[in-house]
């Protein structure tokens, strides 16, 4: 694979699109409502696993399995939110991490349900490779047909996926952005600023926090669905806490509560993440390729630290908002 291959950059773009949707969910919860959810990856897992399990084990049609996946994300959001949303911010953060790890460990250990540590390929039991992707590939081929009519041979499978993911990401971004501009979104921001003030003015803070958590969970589940479609199979390791922190990185990179900064943050993140693969010149050749894979995490960490030092409001945030008390 070379640095100039369209295939490779289409892949980077798809991942950035998926992360845009994931980060949008976090934006609603953290950027607008002030909820410190450190278990975001778990909702992605709930979405992906619900869909895969229903398609393989219950032979659901894809559309029904996807709807059920979103429903499951809402249900898990309520399950997490009902007992924990009355907690103060830092305690909420701790319980959400625990929740995400519970989901991941259940996925690892409940082999008969999830396929266990090897992932969804074992969903149908031993000796039979399972696939949930057949129906999705048909959908993708149909869209590819439309694209070919427009752009000809450039409409490869990867480019088709790129177009689908980004269309969905941008539509969701427009919808969520519009929702946050309504009086409903104003209540969320008030809760972020001071929940006692919001409840003294007659707002049911708990109900709004639940709605925010549920909306964020649905967005994470949509990201989970596309993740599943893109990679054809997945395992519990794909939803480890690092994924949540990547999503936070994107939100903070762009600037909290700046919706249109999200795709930019996600693309930038994708570039840094994938671009560091091409560090095959000195001094990076001091390390072997496996070591270089970890090097990218260090590079991302350094960039974040630099950003926090020199531009704490993020690329598109407003500096004056950082100093208000």
């Amino acid at each position: 694979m070379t640095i100039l291959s369209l295939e490779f950059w289409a892949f980077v773009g798809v991942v950035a699109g998926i992360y845009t949707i994931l980060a949008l969910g976090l934006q609603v919860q953290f950027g607008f409502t002030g909820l410190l959810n450190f278990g975001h990856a778990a909702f992605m897992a709930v979405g992906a696993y619900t869909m895969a399990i229903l398609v393989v084990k219950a032979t659901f049609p894809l559309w029904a399995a996807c709807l059920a996946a979103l429903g499951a994300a809402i249900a898990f959001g309520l399950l997490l939110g009902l007992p924990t949303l009355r907690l103060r911010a830092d305690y909420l953060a701790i319980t959400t991490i625990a929740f995400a790890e519970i989901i991941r460990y259940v996925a690892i250990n409940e082999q008969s349900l999830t396929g266990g540590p090897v992932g969804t390929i074992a969903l149908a039991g031993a000796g039979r490779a399972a696939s949930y992707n057949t129906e999705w590939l048909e959908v993708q081929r149909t869209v590819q047909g439309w694209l070919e009519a427009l752009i000809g041979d450039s409409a490869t499978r990867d480019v088709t996926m790129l177009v689908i993911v980004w269309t969905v990401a941008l539509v969701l971004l427009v919808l969520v952005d519009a929702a946050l501009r309504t009086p409903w979104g104003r209540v969320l921001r008030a809760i972020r600023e001071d929940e006692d003030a919001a409840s003294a003015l007659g707002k049911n803070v708990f109900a709004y926090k639940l709605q925010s958590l549920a909306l964020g969970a649905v967005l994470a589940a949509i990201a989970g669905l596309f993740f599943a479609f893109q990679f054809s199979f997945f395992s519990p390791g794909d939803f480890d806490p690092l994924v949540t922190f990547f999503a936070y990185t994107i939100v903070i990179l762009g600037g909290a509560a700046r919706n249109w900064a999200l795709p930019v943050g996600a693309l930038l993140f994708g570039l840094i993440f994938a671009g560091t693969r091409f560090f095959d010149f000195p001094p990076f050749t001091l390390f072997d390729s496996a070591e270089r894979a970890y090097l990218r995490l260090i590079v991302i960490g350094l960039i974040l630290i630099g950003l926090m030092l020199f531009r704490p409001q993020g690329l598109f945030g407003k500096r004056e908002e950082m100093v208000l008390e």
Partner: protein
Amino acid sequence: MSALLETRDVRKEYGGLVAVDAATLSVEEHSITALIGPNGAGKTTLFNVVSGFARPDSGSVLLGGERIDGRSPHAVARRGLVRTFQTPKALTRMSVLENMLLAAPRQPGEHVWRLLVTPRAGRVREREIRARALDLLRLVRLDGLARDYAGTLSGGQRKLLELARALMTEPRLVMLDEPMAGVNPTLGAQLLGRLEEWREEQGLTFLLIDHDLEAVMSISDRVIVMNDGRVIAAGTPANVRADPLVVEAYLGAHAGGAR
């Protein structure tokens, strides 16, 4: 006149410390009532109990004859009881105008289903409340700052914003916790004068906390005095001033110091 707010034998302990002890008081409808007492007398704790921010250990709170103790703050607020805080809670990364708009009741745009079913209703209501918000901001002289972040306001301006925001909720009873602390004295005096107008025009009832006795005496119809978590006196300003218990517990310190 009838009692709009009543507390009966309200008791609240915090880890062995009795903050409010058997507090029984009533606030007449359409009155301006002052709740005074030295620091640590339990005034703010009683405010918290009444407004739903703290649950009483025993006793009851009635608003317009209906029990409200144990209800959550937003439920109390929707019944027409709005409060402010000693340290003002401006929503700092929202504009001054947004702070006001947020406080308006009956905004269908705040509810997901109504947003989806009748999106226009929210916009219509938004126009109504915007006009009212700007009127109220004019009264507290913050209209010129409507578009600024509330976080850029001074402490005194935040007090004024909180007062205007409280009125925005269309309340029956407004409970103000040290409303004039930090407000420029001239404007503060004018605003205290305004409370009487608002009471007449909008049928409001005010309950003020202050430890500066003279500032509230002149505008209050009734004064309730607390000391050590108990209500030790209640009556007209003149009666309270003459009450030996009050003189001893509260005025005594000042009067003695002045002589």
